[in-house]
């Protein structure tokens, strides 16, 4: 285990490598999250979402609404489905950041830890993709979408969207990395400081 300063320098050194790998395999890395998001959307909101699939790095969602002369109607009435495209890289850049943090820590069994972390990131990325799709539907379709059964209030969608895009991709890798430091000298030092609470 190395000190936090060296750790952060190593993270910065590794980032160009992990980001380059991520650029090369961005579609592949987004796959599990896109599949999960699509599965949840198609199962939970079958009356709204017609299909959801990943095309390279774009998560493409067709919905059961259409637009006729600026008016939102059902897809059947419109004769077409509205299609939304979400850039999965807006969320998946958490993966190379997490990889750089983890691999610069010289932890035991880094591959196992990385695999566990990756599953956690895919899960949160899926929630993020759902939040983005819901935000798009709220803005484009509006009232007919919000009135559909099982749709959360607009304020909750807005908050989840902002959290998923603005905070989660950079914060979750740090939190995952922090929890995976368990048993290391840095973790022990932090724990001792927490136990010795000067404010108490």
């Amino acid at each position, binding site marked *: 285990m190395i000190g*936090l*300063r060296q750790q*952060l320098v190593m*993270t*910065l050194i590794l*980032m160009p490598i992990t*980001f380059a790998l991520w650029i090369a395999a961005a579609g592949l890395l987004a796959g599990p999250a896109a599949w999960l998001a699509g599965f949840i959307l198609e199962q939970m909101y079958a009356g709204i979402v017609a299909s959801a699939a990943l095309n390279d790095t774009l998560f493409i969602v067709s919905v059961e609404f259409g637009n006729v002369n600026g008016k939102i109607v059902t897809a059947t009435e419109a004769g077409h489905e509205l299609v939304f495209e979400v850039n999965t*890289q*807006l969320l998946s*850049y958490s993966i190379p*950041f997490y990889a750089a943090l983890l691999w610069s820590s010289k932890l035991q069994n880094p591959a196992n830890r990385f695999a566990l972390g990756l599953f956690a990131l895919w899960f949160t990325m899926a929630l993020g993709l759902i939040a983005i799709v819901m935000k798009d539907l709220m803005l484009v379709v509006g009232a007919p979408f919000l009135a559909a059964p099982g749709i959360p209030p607009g304020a909750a969608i*807005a*908050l989840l969207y*902002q*959290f998923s*895009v*603005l*905070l989660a*991709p*950079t*914060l979750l890798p*740090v*939190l995952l990395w922090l*929890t995976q430091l*368990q048993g290391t000298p840095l*973790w022990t*030092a*932090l*724990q*001792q*400081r*927490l*136990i*010795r*609470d*000067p*404010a*108490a």
Partner: protein
Amino acid sequence: MLVMTKFLIIFLATLLTLFSVEMLTPVQHGVIQPFTTSLATLSSLLILPFDDGVISQGRILRDVATGFAVSIESGCNGVEAAIVLIAGVLAFPARWQQKLIAIALGFIAIQALNILRIVSLFYLGQWNYTVFEWTHLYFWPVLIMIDVLVVFAIYLKWLASVEPKALTS
């Protein structure tokens, strides 16, 4: 393990509370947007000695000659990063005076890097839009979060030096 769990719970609760408050319309109108406007003004003031073709209009930074402009939006004003730092500092045990110093200095450190982000993006956008997009969407958010980590690490080191027995053993 229990104390770490307690730290994480307090951290996440504080984070979500502050983040939700930040998103409230009155807070956006009364605090966040004026603050973001001041960031654009400060950025243009810092650029002006080197490039007199830059003006700021509200949250927009514009190059008069080319017409290129960047608008500073939510996520680009460093407020979310500051919220992460504030939540971390508040969740970590220390005296209130120490916490307030850390929050004040940490906020300045985050905003200093954020202004560098705004200025760099303003020129990168005029040079190459693809590079601007990648830097804006993926590179700078990570660097800002690392800045938060560095500030927090310096804070922990400072706490240890103030109370030497705290982090040694």
